[in-house]
């Protein structure tokens, strides 16, 4: 029984259909995240990778299909049950989303103060440990506005791991980072995953970085999973769209041009 629990994936999406207004984002999406692994979700921008994380976190509900988190169907949970499940997951937002009216220390202490009855003394020890893990113990008294982009993201990461969640979802953790802080974040994601026994979902389009730490990867395009496998398997995949994406070619199955009428007739004002 216990063994079966470990084999079963932590997160499983089956037949998910989601549309935003008239725009269909996902059609029959199937994806599973095994426990203790780093799973990468890649795809061209604008295909709703953040939406995927919001679906798993229950901030959005799919029109069809099911999303299981540790055996619970997220879309079917009541509001209070959903909030209980969310205590076991956390999300690193692209902007960091630190609370701008609190210092770094208070930001990291926030989830602890909200969800635990620990003494301030104990909270202090935990906060300092988390900040040490991301290398920002010295920046505890700074306000979010005083941090660089990379530091803000690391501070947000410390906050995300404050409650020792089982699942961390990273939304574009590498976007807009210089090579040094990119390297730091890559190292942190892998180290946290391995040392804390977390499960991580990394949504990104920085192919090389994310492939270097992922145990398993999905490529999403055209509202579906178009390829999946270990990084090595993906590199050997011969589908045109996978190769276009992995090698960063400007034109291919994903067109360079946004859908438009014929250029010549457009210039001549015929349409």
């Amino acid at each position, binding site marked *: 029984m216990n063994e079966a629990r470990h084999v079963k994936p932590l997160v499983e999406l089956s037949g998910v259909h989601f549309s935003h207004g008239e725009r269909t984002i996902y059609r029959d999406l199937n994806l599973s995240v095994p426990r203790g692994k780093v799973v990468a979700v890649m795809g061209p921008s604008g295909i709703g990778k953040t939406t995927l994380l919001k679906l798993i976190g229950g901030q959005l509900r799919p029109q069809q299909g099911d999303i299981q988190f540790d055996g619970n169907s997220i879309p079917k949970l009541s509001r209070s049950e959903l909030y209980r499940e969310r205590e076991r*997951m956390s999300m690193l937002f692209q*902007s960091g989303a630190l609370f701008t009216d609190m210092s770094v220390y208070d930001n990291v202490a926030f*989830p602890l103060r909200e969800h635990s009855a620990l003494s301030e003394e104990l909270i202090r020890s935990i906060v300092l440990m988390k900040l040490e893990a991301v290398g920002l113990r010295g920046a505890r008294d700074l306000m979010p506005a005083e941090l660089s982009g990379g530091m803000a993201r690391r501070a947000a990461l410390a906050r995300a791991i404050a409650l020792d969640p089982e699942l961390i979802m990273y939304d574009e953790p590498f976007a807009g980072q210089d090579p040094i802080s990119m390297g730091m974040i890559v190292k942190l994601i892998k180290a946290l995953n391995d040392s804390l026994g977390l499960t991580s979902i990394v949504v990104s389009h920085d192919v090389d970085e994310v492939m270097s730490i992922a145990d398993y990867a999905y490529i999403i395009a055209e509202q579906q999973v178009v390829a999946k496998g270990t990084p090595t398997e993906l590199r050997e995949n011969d589908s045109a769209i996978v190769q276009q994406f992995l090698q960063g070619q400007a034109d291919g199955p994903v067109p360079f041009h946004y859908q438009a009428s014929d250029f010549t007739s457009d210039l001549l004002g015929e349409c």
Partner: protein
Amino acid sequence: MIEFIERIGRQVIAAISGIGYAFFILVNALIGKPQFRKSWPLLIQQLYVVGVLSLLIIIVSGLFIGMVLGLQGYTILVDYGAEQSLGPMVALSLLRELGPVVTALLFAGRAGSALTAEIGLMKATEQLSSLEMMAVDPLRRVIAPRFWAGFISMPLLALIFSAVGIYGGYLVGSGWLGVDKGAFWSVMQSTVDWYDDLLNGVIKSVIFAFVVTWIALYKGYNSTPTSAGISAATTSTVVTASLAVLGLDFILTALMFGG
């Protein structure tokens, strides 16, 4: 023609679903098990931001409006030899109308717009989303303390506005224009009724407080999370709240003093 009807239909549906969403926000923010240990410091902080920081504009405006009332009232009343009635005139204008209404308008401009912009920015910077993902309900954590702070502080601000205004009227009427000091206060005391005037004024400002704060919070929470969206939401807060206050004031005055 059909298009026109369609457009009206769409706008009516949008308006009704907007009202429904505003109710949803308010109900979810306010109903639930109260957690005094966590909510109390948040409420105190918001009372400071929303209430105490609005004091200056309220006191200064109250003083000037009272002084203008004193001047205008005197020039009219003196023609009829009725300058003794300056006290009740100033007091009644302030307690029944100007206190609650002008306070609500100033509050919408000063605190309401700030609430909308703050919540809109929290939404744009994903702070509200991240609260949700940390299993902290933003409605309880962000909206509720701000609502109570507005609801509690605006009636108090209106009373302060009226009190300062009456003193301003006294300064001009008695100190400058020479209305008898004793007459100013004693005629006011015998004319102004506790229930009819003071309590009705307070009821008005409680209702305005509810409406203005609610509009400000709803507009912020429902704003489009872009710079243009937040600026539109802030403007819309001030416009909607001001119009709502003036419209409601007419209805309330008709109900309270009309019969």
